[in-house]
């Protein structure tokens, strides 16, 4: 049996004297959606940041594609980062207000050395098309788009890194109810087509029930024993 896509064991994160995450363990297979549910302040978002190694844990293991990440240096981690991408709650704040959407989506290609002037623009256009944005939106800046459109642009930027895992931190909480379904459907389609694993942070029970394959419930930094069995 192959290793799971993501395997988190006994994760501990402290902010000063406060233990935000206290011994959290879970695993996630490719093509699967694991929801992390719980009240605000329970440590879900900290867990998400720590899985992405944007914050280093104080103890515990984070294995991604069978590789232990917590012992790697920032420099060793950099080539692995593209394979796990975040999508944030605030659609506007996650894009640089000074950059055009086109440049934001092209940035991962440039940073990761996969940009060529010959086919780069076409790839950006294809990515925008893939998330349901007309490529003409590439000329706009974030404040000229709606929240839903911005979130789609953020997803396009995440896809540009060709990830295996998306960490979705409340991806639809800041959106109008009318556009939530569209973004959730887009995420479901992408998972079917690309076989992505989703770590889905959410506190909306209805969305969780509809969208997730499995739910882990957190409370006060721990996995709550009342996590519903499958």
């Amino acid at each position, binding site marked *: 049996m192959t290793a799971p896509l993501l395997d988190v064991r006994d994760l501990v994160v402290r902010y000063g004297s406060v233990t935000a995450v206290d011994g959290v363990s879970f695993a996630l297979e490719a093509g699967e959606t694991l929801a992390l549910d719980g009240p605000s302040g329970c440590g879900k978002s900290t867990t998400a940041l720590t899985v992405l190694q*944007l914050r280093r844990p104080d103890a515990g293991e984070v294995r991604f594609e069978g590789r232990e990440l917590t012992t790697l240096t920032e420099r060793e981690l950099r080539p692995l980062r593209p394979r*796990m991408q*975040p999508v944030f709650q605030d659609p506007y*704040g996650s894009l*640089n207000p000074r950059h055009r959407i086109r440049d934001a989506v092209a*940035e*991962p290609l440039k940073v990761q050395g996969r940009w060529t002037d010959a086919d780069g623009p076409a790839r950006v256009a294809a990515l925008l098309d893939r998330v349901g944005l007309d490529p003409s939106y590439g000329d706009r800046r974030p404040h000229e788009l709606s929240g839903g459109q911005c979130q789609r642009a953020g997803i396009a930027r995440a896809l540009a*890194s060709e990830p295996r895992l998306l960490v979705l*931190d409340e991806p639809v909480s800041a959106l109008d109810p009318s556009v939530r379904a569209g973004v959730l459907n887009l995420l479901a389609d992408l998972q079917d087509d690309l076989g992505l694993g989703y770590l889905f942070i959410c506190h909306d029970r209805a969305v969780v029930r509809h969208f997730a394959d499995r739910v882990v419930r957190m409370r006060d930094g721990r996995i709550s024993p009342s996590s519903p069995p499958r």
Partner: protein
Amino acid sequence: MRLPARRRWPGAAGTTRSLSLLAVVAAVGLLPWLSGRDPALSVLRARSAEQEPTREALDAIRRDLGLDAGPLSLLGGWAAGLVRGDLGISWVSGTDVGPSVLAGLQVSLALMGAAFGVAVLLGVALVAPVLVRGRASAGAGAAMLAAVPEFLLATVGLLVCGVWLGWLPTSGWDGPSSMVLPAVALGVPAGGLLGRLVADALPAVLEERWVELWRGAGVSRARVSAAALRRVLPPLVPQFGMAAVGLTGGAVAVETVFAVPGIGRTALGAAKSQDLPLLQGAVLALLLLGLVTGALSALVRRRLLGPALRDASLSLPPPLPVRVHPAIPLTLAALLATAIGWGLLRDPYAVNTAVRLTPPSWAHPLGTDGLGRDVLARLGHGAASTVGTAAAVCLLSLVLSLALGFLPGVAAGAADIANALPPVIVGILVAAVAGPGTGGAAFAVALISWPPLAAHAAALVQEVRASGFLTAQRAIGAPPSWILTRHVLPTVAAPVARHALLRLPGIALALASLGFLGLGAQPPAPEWGLLLDESRAYVERAPWAALSPAIALALLAGLAVSGAAYAQGVARTPGKEAPVGV
């Protein structure tokens, strides 16, 4: 999802504050060693005009002064004397430094006390209409008064009240009547600043909910006003403290103009004659005065706030935006540009003794000076060099503040010290080390003009660092250099650069004040402060020669204020960058 706010290193500010203070005191102590010019030569000249500056004579003086012992023992000896209360012996007069510093300090304290009284009276006069009439702001006029440099006010006061009207004595220090003009010149800018701070803050406070409630409950207008003042003052007290520190710098100029034997004039005279022990004592006294004032203002603030509100937990509401019509700064800039452009076409150095001190005419639109040089030409060429130097200083402090913006904890401590040093005092120290000159003056102003820019940069850096898009950059594997050059610097540099540009007139004024005191550009260079200083000698016969640079400097002050206010108004409109701190 946000990154946790970067933990501030709490000790950093305190450490750099103490280190910066120590560095300043050590620089004062090491003045004789730092001095680029040979102090032995100046001491020899001062002691006897006839003696030849032979090697033996100079060596004897060096041994006598302890200059040959090296910097460490020099500093040690000075510090040890300081602890015993011994400030050394004047190189020029051969008397003890201590008593002359004390005598100067007494005079200066009396002058500053009187100036403080003038400032409070003026402040009350500026604030009263806001309280009486309600929501109008008196900010613009007060800001204008606050921007007029003391040396300009002193010169104009001397010219009008002393020379033309002959009401008041114009020099010396005997009796209350000789105190009036210096106190007014020193107190008016400070009063303008006090009045502006309170008058700007009051309208927003009067719109707070509690005011409505109190009025609805029938509380008298006077009691509401008193409570509003009580609400406004504590957060402003630190800035009042800084205004008081500014008085020590202003005192140098004012005492020089009116020949008041105070500590500021003592310091300036000692710097010019290279009497370094006297300079050390005087500068130390001025620094001490500034530090004591700062500590006093902290104490007053604590008394006003009470024990519960130790920290900055009581902040003022953002002031209501004051709309400045863009025509005002544009008109001032156009007036200045016309005069400068016209003057640039003429020759500022052509001496023609046949037309000395002529009144304005077609051949010389602003008249001529004591050597028959064209005042308009000197004004135009002076502006070019002053503005050029000011631009270089701006650029230097911009680069410095961008670098320091990334180390807010470290920068804050150094900024406290830089804020406590008036440009004139730094100018005196730099001139004592390097000799007076344009470069030294620019360096002195650059040393202390960066803190507001650095604070602005630090705020922006913190904002960018907390943003989601920067986290996303790390997630795609972007190296720090990419994040810095593509995201952080472009976001921070543009607003800070605009802010630096707005400070240009203020920096030019600081340079002019150093020029006026003879610490900046040297004759025959046509620097504005120097022009004003030179014209003082014949102000009775040719007042226009003094009035032209004075008016030009006043226009520059107006430009500094209205430009900054306009930018502030623009910055506060929604959808633009963070407000510009002024």
